[in-house]
């Protein structure tokens, strides 16, 4: 039996461990500390926490200043506001000066649900993936969010991590090896490869089970780091299966879909199908209802795999 847990819990647990080790960090939030779990730091290590109020641009600027003086800031708020409202600050201050700022985009994807389109970050990965010096990570569950946070702390340079609000299946272990830029092969099959990140990784695993019963054998690769992309693994599996599906809880444009497609177009073109939001805004609804309505379920992956295989020469 698989338990469900929100990835932000893994983020909060990692922050607490960093505080316990008395690492040189400051956790910053912009008035959503309960949602991002940074409130745990506020409660247990108040001298490691700063709430800057409802001001995302200032959040990023202050974090940049802290980073330039050797303190590692974790700038946390909703991904939609962090990447959108703060884009110029992230570009021109954080990335241009290659500052060691950790940007944490919570409540990403359509599964944030009832709050509706204004709060559903469906463009953040596209925005962050075009920035020079940026590292972009989308962990697949709470344990991977923990490992990714620890890895981000050790990594020097701008990082953006994004995860959703909902409790999603917990199927990895905190002890699993996690390396930024090193994708994880979860299943190996010959007919097609699904490259997925974030919440879509578990959907891909479930799709694999369905397809297996139908006699279709697929590979599932968890590409938790979108940038820098694990070119080697992507190429290896493109060659192995000669077609692919890319799945992300995000617009189909940009993000993992963008970087994998671009890389394969240059190196080893294969048919690709996308599972993501089709160039539209979201709306209010229950998370599961929205994931279904916007084509982000295991069944959508199953259909995409079949479509991709059918295009193989």
């Amino acid at each position, binding site marked *: 039996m698989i338990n469900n847990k929100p990835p932000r819990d893994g983020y909060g647990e990692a922050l607490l461990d960093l505080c316990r080790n008395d690492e040189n960090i400051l956790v910053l939030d912009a008035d959503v500390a309960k949602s991002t779990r940074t409130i745990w730091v506020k409660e247990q290590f108040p001298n490691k926490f700063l709430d800057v109020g409802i001001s995302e641009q*200032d959040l990023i*600027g*202050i974090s*940049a200043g802290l980073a*330039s003086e050797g303190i590692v800031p974790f700038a946390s708020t909703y991904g939609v506001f962090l990447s959108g409202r703060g884009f*110029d600050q992230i570009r021109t*201050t954080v990335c*241009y000066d290659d500052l060691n700022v950790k940007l944490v985009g919570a409540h990403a994807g359509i599964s944030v649900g009832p709050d509706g389109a204004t709060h559903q970050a469906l463009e953040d990965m596209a925005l962050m993936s075009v920035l020079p010096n940026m590292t972009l990570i989308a962990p697949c569950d709470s344990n991977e969010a923990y490992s990714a946070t620890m890895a981000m702390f050790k990594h020097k340079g701008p990082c953006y991590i994004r995860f959703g609000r909902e409790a999603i299946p917990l199927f990895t272990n905190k002890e699993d090896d996690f390396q930024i830029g090193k994708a994880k092969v979860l299943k190996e099959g010959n007919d097609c490869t699904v490259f997925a990140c974030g919440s879509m990784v578990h959907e891909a695993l479930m799709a694999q089970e369905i397809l297996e019963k139908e006699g279709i054998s697929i590979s599932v690769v968890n590409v938790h780091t979108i940038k820098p992309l694990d070119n080697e693994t992507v190429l290896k599996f493109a060659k192995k299966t000669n077609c692919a599906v890319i799945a992300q809880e995000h617009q189909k444009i940009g993000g993992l879909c963008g970087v994998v497609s671009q890389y394969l177009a240059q190196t080893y073109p294969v048919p690709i199908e996308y599972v993501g939001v089709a160039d539209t805004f979201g709306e209010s609804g229950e998370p599961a209802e929205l994931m279904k309505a916007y084509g982000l379920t295991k069944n959508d992956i199953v259909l995409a795999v079949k479509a991709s295989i059918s295009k193989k020469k």
Partner: protein
Amino acid sequence: MEKIIRKDILEMIHSAKSGHPGGALSAVEIMSALYFSDVFRYDVNDSAMENRDRFILSKGHAAPVLYAVLGNAGFFDKKHFKTLRKFGSILQGHPHAKHLNGCDMSAGSLGQGLSIAVGKALALRMKNIDANVYCLVGDGELQEGQIWEATMSAAQLKLDNLCLIVDYNGIQLDGNVADIKDVYPLKEKFESFNFNVIEVDGHNKEELIKAYKMFKANVGKPTAIIAKTVKGKGVSFMENNANWHGLAPNDEELKLALKEIEGGLK
């Protein structure tokens, strides 16, 4: 020194054939009172010295005044001046800290410097480093909302090691600040935001040094020095003229300008 800085600014921009003389010339005394006095702690041989004071140029288009000051202070060879805005130069159109010794932060997109200064001032306090952070903004730049986010943060955190300097020259690219989006009165605004406010003639070096010392003596609040200046100061045909916000002088104009500067400020 101020004559040399003005001359360097104009020659640099003339050589680049583009740039922003107006807002660089208005900030000459603000900068020289900081760097060429006993106010600002720095060591040209150790630009990463832990207890150095930090300077953030938020109005990045005034880069030539920063370059002239850093070059004359000895952070890099003045021979670079003639490479301003040219391919491969350490002197980018707007400052890029990575390539420029003595420059603490890149700038160019307005309104961001004060937040960075808040982060730096906070970090210095967290690390018990006795040093101050100075941040220069333009008055037109105060139209950027982020400035006020940062102003509230600085006051909330009681950053008395943070000194904001407003180059109050009254003119922005498209015309008079008051005609476009009025940001005044400045003293009352910053006071109501819980800043220690000092008003000063921004072309009087002695007054500026006195203001910086008042900032250093001030406890419990961040300081804003409102420096009343003249855009294009020192060159009569550039003074108070928005056309010279972002225009390079031609050969003839440079000759006239340098002659005026040699004659001293009026």
